[in-house]
């Protein structure tokens, strides 16, 4: 059995009077790829943001490699170093070149010397077909290229866990494939990932486990074949029927 990278126990999170996460339990092992599916507003993004402490939680615990990161005396900057996140809207830094985007974390957080950081960033960019974009600014790149740079930026920190939050939802359809193929490559390389996605075909391919989120709870989870072919819950079936009707499976 591989080691547990993240364990979430009884996680609750509210925004004001709106309870968005209502008791989430989830454990992810090393090299595992877990996909979160569920309707818009079901709490996928909030769950991912709670895991790297971008949102404070109200109750429950989150353990990374066995250590509780929700204790008050935890250094949240240290925790976040080891957890990469890629957002739906890319969120590249528009005033920095691609290279500067990718090396910001290694240089300022890990204190890697610039020459070394540049060398590693160039290598990573090359691996994902972005070598010639090194000096470009984000607004000169296509959406697909921007999102790949965002993935490289997260990878440059050598995270133990990668969180992907609907990273293809803001892309034109013809650009989705290039980004998903990057994620496939990462999965093949053994990267532990939690992926919120609306791309059901992709989830089915890539996931070791699929969790269906409904109104802030994991209503059902299991291997992709079981969830997509024979869901136990009526609400999961309803959701999948709607997705099929929308032509996304």
């Amino acid at each position, binding site marked *: 059995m591989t080691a547990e990278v993240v364990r979430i126990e009884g996680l609750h999170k509210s925004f004001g009077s709106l309870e968005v996460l209502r008791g989430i339990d989830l454990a992810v092992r090393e090299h595992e790829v877990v996909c979160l599916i569920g309707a818009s507003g079901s709490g996928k993004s909030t769950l991912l943001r709670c895991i790297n402490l971008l949102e404070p939680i109200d109750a429950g615990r989150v353990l990374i490699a066995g250590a509780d990161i929700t204790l008050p005396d935890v250094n949240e900057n240290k925790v*976040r170093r080891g957890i990469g996140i890629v957002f739906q*809207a890319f*969120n590249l*830094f528009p005033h920095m070149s691609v290279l500067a985007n990718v090396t*910001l*974390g290694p240089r300022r*957080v890990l204190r890697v010397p610039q020459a070394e950081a540049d060398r590693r960033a160039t290598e990573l960019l090359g691996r994902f077909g972005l070598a010639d974009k090194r000096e470009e600014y984000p607004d000169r790149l296509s959406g697909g290229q921007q999102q790949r740079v965002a993935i490289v930026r*997260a990878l440059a920190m050598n995270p133990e866990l990668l969180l992907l939050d609907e990273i293809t939802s803001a892309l034109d359809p013809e650009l989705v494939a290039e980004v998903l193929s990057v994620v496939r490559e990462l999965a093949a390389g053994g990267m532990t990932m939690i992926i919120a996605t609306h791309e059901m075909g992709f989830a089915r391919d890539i996931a070791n486990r699929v969790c269906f989120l409904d109104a802030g709870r994991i209503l059902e989870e299991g291997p992709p074949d079981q969830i997509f072919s024979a869901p136990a819950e009526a609400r999961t079936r309803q959701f999948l029927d709607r997705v099929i009707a929308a032509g996304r499976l």
Partner: protein
Amino acid sequence: MLIAVVSSIIFFTIVAIALTSSSTWPLVERDFFDGPTFWRYLPVIAGAFVTNIQLFLIAEILVLGLGLLVAVLRSLSGPVFFPIRLLAIAYADIFRGLPSILIIFVLGFGVPALGLPGVPGDPFFWAVVSLTLVYTAYVSEVYRAGIESIHPSQAAAARSLGLSQVQALRYVVVPQAIRRVIPPLLNDFIGLQKDTVLVSYIGVVEAFRTANIEQQAHFNFTPYLALSAIYLIITLPLTRLTDYLVSRDRRRFLAGAR
């Protein structure tokens, strides 16, 4: 374009003829537009204007730094920083809410009058201090508006890499914010240049004070005209530049560019 030029020439010629042909014109010309007086005082006042330039350059450098510091302190989140935030807010509110001249008087006359040991009595010193305090309050608000205009997802992306709150501000939020607030900063810079004349009241002998002395000695307002000319040489290009930057930003915004 041609029509605009021709119509401008005609318009201003008519205005000039109307002004100079009126019966009071000789009087006005003698007291305000006396050529020989103008050219005699211009070098004297320009010499005194060096003090104004020193004042606003020193104050402006302090203002640009301190204003950013106040804005950053105000934007730190978390209960630990609450007292600091409160202080920064109180400072900005109070100094923006008072007439500059009041602050200049209180600091320039009041503080030296206390005769505290080690406190300088030099009016130039207090002139720099009061102008800096007033304009830092305005400029901190300009910076703050810039910082708040940067979408929180930028800070979130920086924090997710492990950058601290201060690092996220320093490397990601503030550099973008400053680009956006250059035009309003220039506006406040012009305001500061103009307000340097106010410190003449606490005994700094600068250009306005010099013009004032000459005017009273000769009962002629032409020295003020000389000072106005000097001011406009400096402020007009800056004003045009500010307007240009504002309209360029607006065009970019409308074009949907970043």
